[in-house]
Every structure is written in C-alpha cells, then in structure tokens.
C-alpha cells in the first residue's frame, strides 16, 4: 500500500511498530529481580517474547483516535438499530462509574469495607424488582443472554425440586437468537411456536405444544415486531395451567416502563438489558449487564451470592443451598450497575414513564411518515420500534441491505436488517426517546429519498456506501479464507 497521509489510519498498530520504541513508564526495580527469576523453573519461563507492538505514546493516542473516527456512534450519528435501544449514554453516569470508590475497588475487599457499593447494589436490585413487578433480582448476569441462561436454569431447578423432568422450552419463531441458544445451553430442546403476521403468538399453535414435557415458554414483550402481545395475560395463564413457567425476554422493556410490568402479566422470570433500557453504553459490543428478576417461588434458586441487608449492614449471602450457582467469577458488572443506578435515580418514576411514552411516540411517528413508502410488517400502532419490509424495493432489486448501506452515506447508522426472521427484507427501526423530532424528520426524509431512488436509479443504491472509510466488503472471502490475526508478511511496503 503506497503511503498516504490521509489514510494513515489504514495501518494497524503492528505496522507502526519499530524495535525499541516504548510507550510505557515503569519504575526501576526496588527489589531483587534476578533472584526471583531463578526461583521460576526454566521450563516455565517464556522463551520467545510475544510479538507485541513497539510504539510511542503519541503513536498509541493518534492511532486509536483516528480509528475511533472510522466509527459511527450514538454520539455522532442517529443510530436507529432495532432491538438495541441505542439511546443517549449520559456523561454523568460515566463520571460516577469512574469514581475511585467504585472503579478502583477490589471485588474481594472485606464486606465491611465495601458498604457503599453493596448498598448501591441492594437498592438497584430493589428498584429493578419494582420496575418489573418481580419479587427478587440477581445483578450477576453479564448480559441479556447470560440472564436468559440463569433464568432457564432457575426454572429447571424449580421443576427438578418439584420432582419434574421436563425436556422442552417453547420459543416463538420471531424470537432473538439468544433465546433458543440459551435454551439449548440449559439442556432443553427448543420448540418453535408460530407467530402471526403481527408477530403475535399463534395461540392454537402454542396450545398444541403446551404439555407436561414443556418446562417453559420464553417470549419477548413487546415482541420483536414492536407490538405488545394483546393476549399476553391469557398466554401466561394458559402456560401456568400446564405447569409451564413463563420467561420474558426484557430486551424491549424500554417500551413499557411504568406502563406494564412483566410480573403483573404473569411472568415468572425476566431479564433486563441495562445496556439498552438503562443507558449503559454499548461499547462497540459490550460490556453490558443482564440482571434477572424472578417471582418468589424461584428466589431460592438465584445465583450466589445475593446482596442482602442485615440490620444496617449489607452483606453477600452465600448460604443458599438451592442456588443454581454462579455465572461469572464475581458479583456482576458493577461498573454498569453504577451507571444504571445513576440513571434510575436521575429519572425517577415519572421520568421513566416519560421515557417509554416518548419511545413509543417516536417509533409511531417514524412508522407513520414511512408507511407510504415502505411496507409495514404489522399494522400500527407499534410500541418502541417499528418493522418495515423492503419487499416492494426488493422487486426493483433493492434489498434491505442496500437500503442500510445507502443510509450510511446519508449520515445515519442503519436499522437492524433481516431480523425478525419472519419478516421478509426486514428493516427494524428503534428511534429511542432521546432523539428529537428534527432528527427523526431528517432520517425519514433520507428513507423516503432512498425509496424514491429505488424507483429511479437502483444502481446508485447498489454503489453505496461511497462516503465511508471502506466500501462494501467481501464477506464471502472473509469466511472462505479466514484471516483472524495480523502476521508480519502483511506489512505494507
């Protein structure tokens, strides 16, 4: 690659490396190093040093500053990625999570010396329980998928405690992939339940599957088409009639804060995605946090330890013989818990309700503005997100993916595409409550412009994106010849 100052970001950190250059600063040893080394058996010592980059601190700062500029983030772009709730990540929460009292606290600090963080965790669990109408909450799961695993394992343990051997878990065909995956991981067979065109559960099909071999029904509310399941209470009742536990995937909780509570709907378990509803940043893929809430009958099975309050003192309770065990080594993603706590305390009850009201309003506004230009997967009103289908555009050779790429050129990140699977050429749009009407209008104008372009010159759309650092990438090549790590030979000359 010929050197181009304007594309210096094109180099990987290894390609900036030069022998002997350093970016670290470490004190000189104040104790004997050689003697200690001699205590380590020769065969245990590293022979060849790891080929890590050798760069200066400026190289590091400039390289990663430039790389960051190749990203779209919520901070720079509208990010209508359905099912991901890409809302604004408050700066205040970042500051709070970085207070040394939280950020620099070791997980094995004696409980008596960690009362502040334990109090925060205890309060947060109680607030989440109130928000979801659950009786108890574990903050330990690292993300939604781990919350799912924890939830299903608790259900399994409960059935076993009741001497039942159930083998199946029902999951709608509209479900997110983690639902069936978590089910399998928990040792269950996944049975798909049909949804109708609105993504609502086909009750006859559900009825057909319910039975003594079914451990649980796992369902997302609002569903992945952005609709509230109108017969949800009936569904949980029917499940319970068959001794089937009902799990709510809480990824879409942003739609119903203060409006409807999983617990009141009859759910036995539900998880929270703090990185969606509760503003902890997505970080380019994580970390998040996936607390799980349960009804009283499942409380004995919660992961250990549980943060408890004994008189005025907070403690980690390990003495829980029926617990399913642990999901990560320590107590949960505390850094994320601090952010979520700060958010809930900032919003208060009315604020949280306003969050959902505006999330629903924004989604319906977008759906309304676009319904004339794209097929709508399900009739409105929707909840916090709406799903369009590029069926119509597809006939002109313009796919949902093409539309997504074109949006990048117009200054917007793309909606989720091809999810849920039951909608052909799906474009799943979740504006969130933190975006203004002006931004929504701008996005809708861009979408309408693309719909028009699909009629007038599809080719332009196929050529998109043009303004991004790279153009469309060869996915097939990536999978055919996996190149998963840099090797020196790649060094541009």
């Amino acid at each position, binding site marked *: 690659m010929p050197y181009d100052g304007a594309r210096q970001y094109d180099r990987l950190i290894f390609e900036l490396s030069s022998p002997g250059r350093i*970016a*670290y600063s470490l*004190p000189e040893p*104040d104790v004997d190093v050689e003697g*200690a*080394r001699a*205590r380590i*058996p020769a*065969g*245990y010592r*590293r022979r060849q040093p*790891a080929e890590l980059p050798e760069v200066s601190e400026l190289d*590091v700062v400039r390289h*990663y500053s430039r790389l960051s500029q190749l*990203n*779209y*983030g*919520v901070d720079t772009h509208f990010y209508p990625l359905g099912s991901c709730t890409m809302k*604004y990540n408050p700066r205040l929460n970042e500051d709070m999570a*970085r207070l040394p*009292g*939280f950020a*620099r606290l*070791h*997980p094995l*600090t004696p409980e008596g*010396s960690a009362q*502040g963080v334990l109090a925060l965790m205890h309060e947060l669990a109680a607030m989440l329980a*109130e928000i979801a109408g659950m009786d108890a909450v574990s903050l330990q799961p*690292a993300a939604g998928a781990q919350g799912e*695993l924890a939830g299903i394992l608790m259900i399994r343990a409960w059935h076993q405690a009741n001497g039942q051997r159930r083998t199946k878990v029902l999951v709608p065909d509209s479900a997110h*992939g*983690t639902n069936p*995956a978590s089910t*399998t991981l*928990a040792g269950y067979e996944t049975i798909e339940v049909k949804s109708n065109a609105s993504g609502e559960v086909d009750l006859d099909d559900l009825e057909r599957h319910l039975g003594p071999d079914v451990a649980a029904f796992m369902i997302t509310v609002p569903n992945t088409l952005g609709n509230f399941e109108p017969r949800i*209470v009936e569904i949980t009742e029917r499940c319970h009639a068959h001794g089937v536990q009902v799990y709510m995937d809480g990824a879409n909780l942003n739609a119903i804060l203060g409006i*409807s*509570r999983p617990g009141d709907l009859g759910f036995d378990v539900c998880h929270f*995605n703090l990185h969606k509803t509760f503003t902890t940043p*997505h*970080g*380019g893929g994580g970390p998040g946090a996936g607390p799980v809430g349960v009804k009283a009958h499942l409380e004995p099975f919660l992961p250990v330890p549980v943060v408890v309050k004994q008189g005025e003192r907070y403690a980690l309770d390990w003495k829980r013989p029926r617990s399913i065990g*642990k*999901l990560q080594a*320590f107590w949960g993603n505390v850094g994320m818990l601090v952010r979520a706590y700060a958010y809930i305390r900032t919003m208060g009850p009315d604020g*949280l309700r306003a969050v959902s009201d*505006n999330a*629903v309003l924004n989604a319906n*506004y977008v759906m309304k503005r676009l319904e004339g230009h794209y097929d709508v997967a399900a009739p409105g009103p929707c909840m916090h997100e709406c799903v369009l289908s590029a069926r119509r555009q597809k006939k002109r050779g313009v796919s949902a993916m093409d539309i997504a790429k074109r949006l*990048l050129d117009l200054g917007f990140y793309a909606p*989720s595409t091809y999810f849920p699977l039951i909608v052909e050429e799906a474009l799943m749009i979740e504006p969130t409550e933190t*975006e203004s009407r002006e931004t929504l209008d701008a996005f809708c104008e861009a979408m309408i412009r693309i719909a028009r372009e699909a009629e007038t010159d599809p080719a332009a759309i196929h050529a998109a994106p043009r303004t991004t650092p790279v*153009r*469309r*990438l060869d*996915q097939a090549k990536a*999978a055919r010849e996996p190149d998963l790590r*840099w090797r020196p030979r*790649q060094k541009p000359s």
Partner: protein
Amino acid sequence: MRYLPNTAQDQRAMLAAIGVGSVEDLLVKIPAKARLSRPLQLPPALAETDLVRALRALAAANAHADDYVCFLGGGAYDHYIPSPINHLISRGEFFTAYTPYQPEASQGTLRTIYEYQTMIAELTGMDVANASLYDGASSLAEAALMAMAVTGRAEVALAGGLNPLYRRVVATYGSGITMRLRDVPAPAGVLDADAARRAVGGKTAALVVQSPNFYGCLEDIAGAAEIAHAAGALLVVVTDPVNLGVLEAPGRLGADIVVGEGQGLGVPLSFGGPYLGVFAARQDFVRRLPGRLVGATVDLDGARGFVLTLQTREQHIRRARATSNICTNVALCALMATIYLAVLGKQGLTRVGELSMAKAHYAAERLTRIPGVSLRFPAAPFFKEFTLRLPRPPERVVARLARQRILAGVPLKAFDRRLRDCLLVAVTEKRTREEIDRLAAALETAVA
C-alpha cells in the same frame, strides 16, 4: 428533562401527524388488565448536583486501591493502568457504538478487535483468539463446553488449584447438560500427576489446569498436556495474560484451549466487573469457537477492510445449534486490553511481569520472617501471589490491617475450610518495597 428532547409542542405535532390525540391512544393494544394502574414506587428524580453528592457518599464508603495499599488478588489484580487508556476508550465513537454489524461504519471497532485477537493469540501462543467473552470464569465454562463438543465426551477434569469461583461457574454452565466434573486433588498446592492420570481417561473431554493457580503456585503445564493428550482429552489452560511477558505461552506447552481473565490488562477493578474473558484455541477448532470473530477482507475497490466473520457459529444465525448463546460481549474491555498491550508493548509487558514477580518474592521472604507466618505450599514455585499460613485467624488480621489502610490479602476460609488459617497475598508492580515493609510491620504486630 435533559435526556428527553420532545417538548409538549413536539409531542402535539407528532401525535397530530400520527393522527391520534394522545400517547395513550398508541397504547390501545395493551389490555387494561395488563396495565400498571399506579406510578412506579421509586425514589423521586435527583438533580445532577444532588445525585453526585449521593454517589460520592456511597463511593467514599468503600476501601479502594487509591486510598488503601492493596495486596488482594484471587482473580483480580491492582496492576497499573496507563493514562491513555481511559482517554481513548472514552471517545464517543468507541463507547457509544454497537456491535459492528455495519462494517463500513464500524471499521474503528473492527480494526481494534482484529488487533486484540492478534495480541491475544501472540501472548497465549495459540492460533486464534475470539473477540472476547464475559470474564475468565465464563470463558472457562465455554471452553469446557467446546471441549465436549470437539471430543464428544462428557467429563471435565479440574485441577485442584483451579479458582473455586471458576469451578462454580463451570458447574453452573454444565448443570443443564450432561457435563460431569471430576476434581483432581492438589495437596501440595499443584496438580498431583498420579491422581490426574487416574482421573483422566476415555470419557474425559478436557483436563483444566490453572497456572499460576488459585494459591499462586505455578503448574507443570507441559506435564498436564501429556496426561490429557495421552487420554485423547484436550488440555484447557486458565492463564492470567498479564503474566505472559515472563511466563511461557501455554500454547507452546501443549494447551489446546487457553482461557483467562484479562482484567490485569488495563481493566479497572470495579468491584468485580465488567472484566475481560480471554479465549484462544488451536486453528482446527476455529469453526467451533464461541463468540465473535473479526476477519480481514477487501472492499469493492480492493482496499483492506475488516468484518465480523464465521457468524454461522453464532446464535443470531445458528440459533438453537449455535456454539454459544453469547451476544453482547465486553468489546470495550477488549479495547482497554488492546491499548494496554500497545502501550506496554514487547518490553513493557515483560517488565510488568518481572516487577510483580520480584516484589512478590521479596514480600514472601519478608513476611515469612515473621514468627508463626509461613508459606502454606513451600515446595511449589509461585509468581506474583502466594498463600501464607498465619498463627491468628486471617479474617481478624485483615480487618485490623484495614484500619491501617492496608488490604492485606484474601482469607481462604470462605473458599476452602481446610485453608481456614491461610491468607492469599498478591503483589503487583505497583507495590513499592516500602509498602511491603509496611505490610510486614503491621502483620507482625497483628499476629504477635
């Protein structure tokens, strides 16, 4: 409300455009009995200054490593975090982005993950590393599951030196399926080879060895590899990557899968999370790996670009038959580690390891000079952490030293009743000789 841009006027205009009179009209699909009929019972909203005051008070009630001299380990360590890391991961383009599903608008994240995968593969001496899992313990659980899938066997043998918290997580992940665990004792602080040979056999999917192990002792990984491979089992090594500037790469000692906790690589202690689940394996397992992988490819114009690849392994494609259920991982912590390894580099990481090792050995020597204080496993070599036997109940000693702003170590009673008289002491490059001497002096009075 500063996070909600819609004004009453915006709302009226939008409702009119939609053709309804109120947000309530948009909630019609929710049956009455599904509605919450009262406001949530939560504390009222706090203004920024009040919230900051409240959270500062909570934070101030914790004994953190800036104010206390920290000798705590047991899976999380107070290593030095170079200043550029927080500045760079705080750039909004990094921390407010989602998983790079649109690669053209996500090259920043994709390139850093590709760098991360390369660095981890280098460090561990393995062929491939994934884009991260939740933490060290869940990475180990995923490794056990993968070993089962690869070998078609159901038994996982765990070396006695494995962190008990990790063991608990593996057991939980395996509880729903057919996984069976076998514990191999470590009476002398390291794996008992004979016991291991007996435990590992035709049903064994993997032998799991942690080194340095929970007690701080170094295991004979090559020996363990022989035992595992002789039985057709995989060797899974639990490592602490920050040590690998000095300790041999497990991959060069026969490991088939290497997992570990990456917290030491620039990730804040944060009372236990979010941390960084490191996962690396041999090339032939690449299509069995859990989690995301970033690969290099080219764009329309032939320019180098990066994408998420081999996604058919993952839940959003393979669903019930995915290699794992993980979706959100810990990308930003992986970025911290990437920047950390770029800053420390080839020489720096070795320096960090040498300093930690040397100070730990100085501390062990210094502390065992105290009457009644001895190494619990004198025969086993250790690295930056070691287990002491104390003449007084460790809990009391620790509580007493905390009052002198020293976090002396982790009492092991809660982990293993047999070690009720033991204290686990970790020493990183951040500890000075003077701090270690202070610990020694304080400990001496405390146990006198």
